[in-house]
């Protein structure tokens, strides 16, 4: 804790600052690349839709000794369609998946399988899905997605402002795209569980974004009444001061999902737990990234287009330029802000990477630490400088 706590403190004070907003072009590029990749994967490979969406049957057997080949033969013979047989775990439990079955055939298949395995029919678990059911689920999911997006944008526009709402929406779409892309790329099967997970990401990705925006809103409340920082700089500062919090909330959100994944994938060998957890996991990771790297920089960009903000930013820059000229001969150009407050020693920063290494910190902070650290923007941050949110 302490190490990460230190980092948190330094981030909070601005001793250490990751210039995320300043480097936004980089992150935008990264995101655009990922998105393009996701779309390409989607187009080229398509999604591997589970039997739930195509119609068909899935049978799960109790532990048994039958061989996979025999079972497959029986299933294919009776149903007349290709069957996919997997073993789950090592006790011989099997999952037999047959697509394109109607109810009647599926019953026959089930009976045939049960007799092949020598068990009563009732002990063979079956899930038979008509072809339109998956479509219905998917349609409803789309519908839910659309309704949610509209509502949430309206809500965020009221609670914050429209630019933030827009940025949050973009970040959300970004997360969903990445998740879908990962599914296409890796070829995970898409099941109703996946859809559930995907829909959960909606709320969750936004949760993160909202936490960040909340800090941003506070920090930048009086941006036009000061002339020291541009909006982007303030946004970056706010982002940095909430960074630890964002990382913590994301990690804590991911942990239970990791538990689900471990059990769902490792012990049950698949199934709904796994499907839900997998898509949530991917989506949450994307969400943590996007709320930090995409959402806030986007807001800064949008804001900079605002006339008032832009004017203020210009004023800030002019002033700074003037000072720089004035102070050219003089010493520290930053000093005017807080003479003497610039206590951060260069050595201190240099050591940071090591200091900060921490088993837990590594999870979330790893990526950001690489960010440019010594940017003009951050240079101005004295350690005594309040972040602006305190009073």
């Amino acid at each position, binding site marked *: 804790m302490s190490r990460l706590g230190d980092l948190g403190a330094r981030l909070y004070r601005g001793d250490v600052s990751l210039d995320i907003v300043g480097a936004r072009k980089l992150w935008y590029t990264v995101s655009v690349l990922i998105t393009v990749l996701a779309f390409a994967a989607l187009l080229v490979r398509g999604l591997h839709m589970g039997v739930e969406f195509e119609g068909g049957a899935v049978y*799960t057997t109790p532990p048994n000794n039958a061989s996979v080949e025999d079972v497959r033969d029986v299933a294919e013979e009776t149903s007349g369609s290709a069957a996919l047989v997997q073993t789950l775990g090592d006790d011989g439990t099997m999952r037999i998946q047959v697509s394109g079955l109607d109810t009647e055939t599926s019953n026959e298949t089930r009976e045939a399988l049960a007799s092949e395995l020598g068990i009563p029919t009732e002990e063979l678990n079956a899930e038979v899905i008509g072809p339109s059911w998956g479509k219905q689920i998917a349609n*409803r999911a789309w519908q839910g997605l659309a309704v949610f997006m509209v509502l949430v944008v309206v809500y965020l526009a009221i609670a914050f402002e429209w630019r933030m709402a827009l940025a949050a929406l973009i970040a959300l779409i970004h997360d969903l795209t990445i998740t879908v892309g990962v599914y296409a790329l890796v070829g995970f099967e898409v099941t109703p569980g996946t859809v559930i997970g995907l829909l959960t990401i909606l709320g969750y990705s936004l949760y993160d974004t909202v936490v960040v925006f909340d800090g941003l809103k506070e920090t930048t409340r009086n941006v036009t009444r000061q002339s020291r920082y541009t909006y982007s700089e303030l946004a970056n500062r706010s982002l940095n001061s909430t960074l630890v919090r964002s990382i913590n909330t994301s990690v804590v959100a991911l942990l239970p999902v990791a538990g689900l994944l471990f059990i769902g994938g490792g012990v049950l060998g698949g199934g709904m737990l796994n499907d839900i957890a997998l898509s949530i996991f991917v989506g949450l990771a994307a969400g943590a990234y996007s709320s930090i790297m995409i959402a806030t920089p986007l807001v800064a960009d949008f804001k900079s287009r605002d006339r008032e903000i832009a004017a203020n930013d210009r004023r800030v820059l002019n002033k700074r330029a003037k000072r720089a000229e004035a102070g050219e001969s003089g010493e520290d150009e930053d000093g005017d802000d807080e003479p003497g407050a610039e206590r951060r020693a260069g050595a201190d920063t240099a050591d940071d990477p090591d200091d900060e290494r921490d088993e837990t910190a590594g999870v979330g902070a790893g990526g950001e630490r690489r960010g440019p650290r010594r940017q003009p923007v951050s240079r101005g941050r004295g350690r005594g400088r309040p972040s602006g949110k305190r009073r």
Partner: protein
Amino acid sequence: MATPKKDLRSSRKRDVKSRGQGNPGRALALILLMVIALTAGMFASGYTTPRLGIDLAGGTSITLTARPDADDADAVNPTNLNTAVSIIERRVNGLGVQEAEVQTQGDENIIVNIPKGTDEQAAREQVGTTAQLGFRPVLSVGAATPPAEEGAEDGSGEEGAEDGEEQPGDEPTDEPTDGEEPTDEPTDEATDDSTENQSAPAPEARDDAGGLSPASYRTDEGDEEQSSDEPADDATDEPTEEPSEEQQEGEEGTGDEQDPAADAAALQAQLAALDCTTEGARLDASRAASEAKDEETVVACDADGTAKYALGPVAVPGTDVKDASAIYDTQRGQGWIVQMEFTGAGTGKFADITQQLSSQPQPQNQFAIALDGEVVSAPSVSERLGGGRAEISGTFDQESSEELANILKYGALPLSFEESSVSTVSPMLGGEQLRASLIAGGIGLALVVLYMLVYYRGLAVLAIVSLLVSAAMTYSIMALLGPAIGFALNLPAVCGAIVAIGITADSFIVYFERIRDEIREGRSLRPAVERAWPRARRTILVSDFVSFLAAAVLFVVTVGKVQGFAFTLGLTTALDVVVVFLFTKPLMTLVARRKFFYGGHPWSGLDPKRLGAPPPLRRGRRPAPVVPSDPKEA
């Protein structure tokens, strides 16, 4: 929550006033009271575990989706779905299935959950078929069991019928709607109900008929009304029941005027062979009958198994019924009657058939309202009923008349269903999934607790206790919702609860980080706790609201398993707010008074040094904020 801003502002003021103290004791007492009440309620109600869904308990779950009808785009509507639910429920319960559950889901689905241990196959067959309604002329009537044919006509008149055989246990649960199959006790035969309508009526029926429209015929509805009675009655039924239909004496008697003799004889033989005495036999009979084409003659059982009929071709299809309603007739003192209205085509057909029937002798002047191959009612006709309206009178009570009206109105609506998904889970697999998800939840919780302990040390204890409170409330509410609204915990719901651990813990983190920020500012703990709260509160409210919004939208819009997931997610999100407000914050206030925490013990998680707070000396001399800010909320 929806308007956090406003709330906040007002409460902020309050907060400032009461800063430092709040009223931690009261809030804590309140939530403890809630927890105790919920727990006590849980034990008092006897439902100490949440009801498990089919995928965890084992059983069969069938999802039926209404097929849209090409002719009538509005056919798939809530009313029709509800009618279908009650019809299906009647059928499933008729199988002797205990606790089968039939409910609508979304606006076009019906879910049928059949617990383990019942004849899944038979249930599926019952469930999937379409309700078909038609008016067929009665060719002849027989008592359900050939031997038993005691002259019903006299006193008891019709119907007494219902009796007994109704399968014993069958509808324990069913609701009024299915009154259809009344099970009354064997003994009563005839007595009350039947008599009235029956005897007298027949004749007068015509007379009063005038009522609405030409129509009125008396039925032997008797049976319908008494649904209740003890199911247990005699298994054997036969003895008891008497042929219901009113005057139908002729059991298989004469019935066939229209058909050539040979056919008639065959039909008679069929009728004689028809066994309506047992549940299973009736099911077979109705299945056979419902498969017959409209033009064919069929033999069918009475819905309650008291009589059997040989029926002519469908004279008026159920789709020709435009409307039907149950009304209480005050003018003629007939009590509850059912009025129906026919469509244009139906009017003509109905007039024809009634004209034809009215001239016939007793059994043949009845026509049968056949639903799914079962005769739900067989009123007799005494005159030609033109005009497109008719009414059925008899011994109805409100329930039975409404039910018949419903059947008339919707029974034949071409609302056909297809099985969208059928999933059968053996109790073994269900148990395994339950175990696995509990383990997953345990692991998730352990990981979160561990992380919190490592990162927040002493503060983590607060978080853990809060999580426990939240878990206790979630659990007891789930257990209580089982009996209350039929909530069943299924796999996705468990998943939602596990994911919610993270959401709940996140709000603690938001608060803790705020407190730490304040300490980094150089404040001591107690003011820090109070100053951090308003901002943390806003963040928590806004983000929980977003999360809740997602859950609510999912719950409303989606179908199937997604709903269970959304429900738990929404529930836990709401509880999160309750717990943070009423428990975590007050507890934090109390804890802040303890030396361990305010002294900044290294293990408290609030050590100012570790947090990088400036040395106390500097406190208060910190430079003014860069962004000139108005006095913030705190």
